[in-house]
């Protein structure tokens, strides 16, 4: 989200899900929308029925790519290049929104000079997207009354992830497609409460509601609310924690309902890191690969056994309601944390219910201050909602950006950290699939979902398969500089030549044995979406 914060001053989906239906053009990139956000995909397809143009730019031709009016396959990691190319065409053809650019943004002249280098021919060479297609996409998006951009982890999981997002923001601002209905730059969050985890300050640099820990005034507010002294320096990200654990500089970790043994890039490194800790606590519903390494395992509960709130990808705060009693001796996660806080000698960890906790959240978090349990019984409220009579905010940045003027950023294309070479001549990209969810802790224990796709596979382009004599369903080896796995081949045109795709939900054949932990320097997101591999028959 660092990219959107730099460009607009706020890091969430700018518009709400309901608005997609009334867009005239929807540009989707790095999102396998029909599989991963099916109900949002429905909305987008309804817009298409009503006449909207749907444009998909993705290295994999997934279902939404098949259904698109324009589909383009870019080379892995070439996003800044083709986005600069689009902006170049839009500016030189005079299709940009002059009024919006001069009234609401800064940095236009620099951007114009920067993108001038990205001629259609150069773009074709770097990204593989034909010059004519670039022009077609530029025209469709720039000329639309309301153009909306949708992206997901195909954009962020690169060393240039932050640059990619800022480039998308450039595109939206240059065409005036932000700050009004059915437009905007819209990241789709993967897991159900990613938005909430960020909003509530499960990040090393901010308290709840993106209030910075380095800001003395804000820190003083939390010190007063909690009655303790607080540290004012930014903490470690998950990747930094893993590296420090590996080097013996982190002594302990507390992991709640996460399975980094499967979800982190370079699993072998993560195993060594976790094994190196003096003390590891894991709170989860199943004995995950990570829990097996723990010193203490605390049984939490599923959503069905607890009350609380969850914030979806378009900033709507919604209720989760307890339907059954906790299974066995398990306890809702909030209760475990409250009990532990008390045991650690802190008096203000005395909560009787999630609503108690929530009231404290409202008191210290301006963007949530007007959203109460009571109100969301009857109303759909999107944050920011600062007061009890505020209607909530459907789309952000109307009239002015959170940071004042929108920042147009001049950005250069950089190659992915690991390009193919003689030893590892192919490229691997990873992703999710319809029937499974993240690391599979929930879905692989659901009989109906597990039946749909039982084991890992690797997608190979027909020409590459033919060259190597690989046939459908054959078990093949995929190796990178970090490790090697085996998986069954699926021969398909979904992937381009020289590229293979592996979903990352499975323990056997875990794709993250192979992936590159090289990080985006700002967002610290690892480059899951591209690394060099070699593919061989066994």
């Amino acid at each position, binding site marked *: 989200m660092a990219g959107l914060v730099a460009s607009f001053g706020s890091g969430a989906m700018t518009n709400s899900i309901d608005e997609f239906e009334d867009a005239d053009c929807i540009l989707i990139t790095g999102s396998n929308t029909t599989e991963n956000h099916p109900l949002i995909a429905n909305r987008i397809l309804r817009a298409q029925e009503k006449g909207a143009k749907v444009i998909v730019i993705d290295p994999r031709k997934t279902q939404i790519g098949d259904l698109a009016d324009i589909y383009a396959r870019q080379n892995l990691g070439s996003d800044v290049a083709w986005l600069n190319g689009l902006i170049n065409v839009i500016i030189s053809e005079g299709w940009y929104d002059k009024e919006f650019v001069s009234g609401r943004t800064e940095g236009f002249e620099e951007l114009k000079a920067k993108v001038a280098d990205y001629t259609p021919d150069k773009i074709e060479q770097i990204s593989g997207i034909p010059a004519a297609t670039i022009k077609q996409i530029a025209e469709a998006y720039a000329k639309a009354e309301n153009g909306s951009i949708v992206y997901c982890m195909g954009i962020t999981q690169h060393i240039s992830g932050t640059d990619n997002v800022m480039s998308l923001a450039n595109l939206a601002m240059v065409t005036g497609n932000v700050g009004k209905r059915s437009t905007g730059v819209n990241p789709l*969050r993967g897991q159900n409460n990613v938005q*909430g985890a*960020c909003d509530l300050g499960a990040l090393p640099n901010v308290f709840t509601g993106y209030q910075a820990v380095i800001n003395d005034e804000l820190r003083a507010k939390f010190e007063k609310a909690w009655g303790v002294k607080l540290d004012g320096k930014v903490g470690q*990200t998950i990747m930094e924690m893993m590296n420090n654990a590996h080097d013996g500089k982190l002594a302990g970790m507390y992991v709640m309902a996460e399975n980094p043994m499967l979800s982190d890039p370079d699993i072998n490194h993560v195993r060594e890191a976790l094994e190196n800790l003096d003390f590891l606590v894991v709170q989860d519903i199943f004995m995950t690969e990570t829990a097996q390494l723990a010193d203490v395992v605390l049984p939490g509960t599923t959503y069905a056994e607890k009350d609380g709130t969850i914030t979806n990808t378009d900033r709507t705060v919604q209720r*989760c309601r307890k339907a059954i009693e906790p*299974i066995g001796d398990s306890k809702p996660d*909030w209760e475990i944390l409250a009990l532990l806080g008390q045991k650690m000698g802190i008096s203000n960890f005395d909560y009787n219910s999630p609503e108690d906790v929530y009231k404290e959240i409202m008191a210290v978090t301006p963007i949530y201050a007007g959203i109460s349990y009571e109100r969301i019984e009857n109303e759909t409220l999107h944050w920011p909602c600062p007061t009890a009579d505020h209607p909530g905010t459907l789309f952000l940045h109307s009239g002015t950006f959170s940071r004042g003027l929108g920042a147009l950023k001049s950005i250069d294309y950089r190659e992915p950290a690991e390009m193919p070479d003689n030893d590892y001549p192919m490229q691997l990209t990873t992703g999710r699939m319809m029937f499974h969810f993240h690391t599979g802790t929930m879905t692989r224990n659901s009989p109906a979902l597990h039946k749909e796709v039982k084991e890992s596979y690797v997608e190979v382009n027909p020409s590459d398969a033919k060259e190597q004599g690989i046939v459908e369903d054959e078990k093949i080896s995929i190796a990178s500089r970090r490790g090697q796995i085996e998986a069954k081949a699926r021969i398909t045109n979904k992937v381009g030549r020289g590229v293979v795709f592996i979903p990352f939900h499975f323990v056997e054949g875990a794709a993250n044995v192979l992936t590159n932990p090289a990080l985006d320097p700002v967002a610290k997101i690892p480059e899951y979406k591209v690394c060099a591999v070699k593919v061989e028959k066994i």
Partner: protein
Amino acid sequence: MNCDFVLTTCPYCGCGCNFYLQVIDGKAVGVVPCKTHPVSKGTLCIKGWNAHQFVHDEKRLTKPLIKKSGRFEEVSWDEALDYTAKRMLEIKEKTGPDSFGFLSSAKCTNEENYLLMKLSRGVMGTNNVDHCARL
């Protein structure tokens, strides 16, 4: 037989569809979509339709566990939490607050994320708290 329908939010993706969890005699047995919800509008995807299935899985963890000489042993909540609190405070004392880290979860509620964040910052005294959404 006792049958209930409890309105709640789907645990899977960020669309945030709502549905009714059907509960018979204290067991979650099925899912019914919610017609009036602005995103779901009466439909769900295959994950949502099956969202009750993992709840009663027999592999669910039901007891706190402590690893003693390499093997997990079932213990009481009091023992598990006392031991955890003691070890965490020891680390804070010995190697400092920043030698400890917390990973929160995009699968947990807002309230739970808040409490883990408060435990990290307000009790352990470190800003080393993050979640897997970067991943």
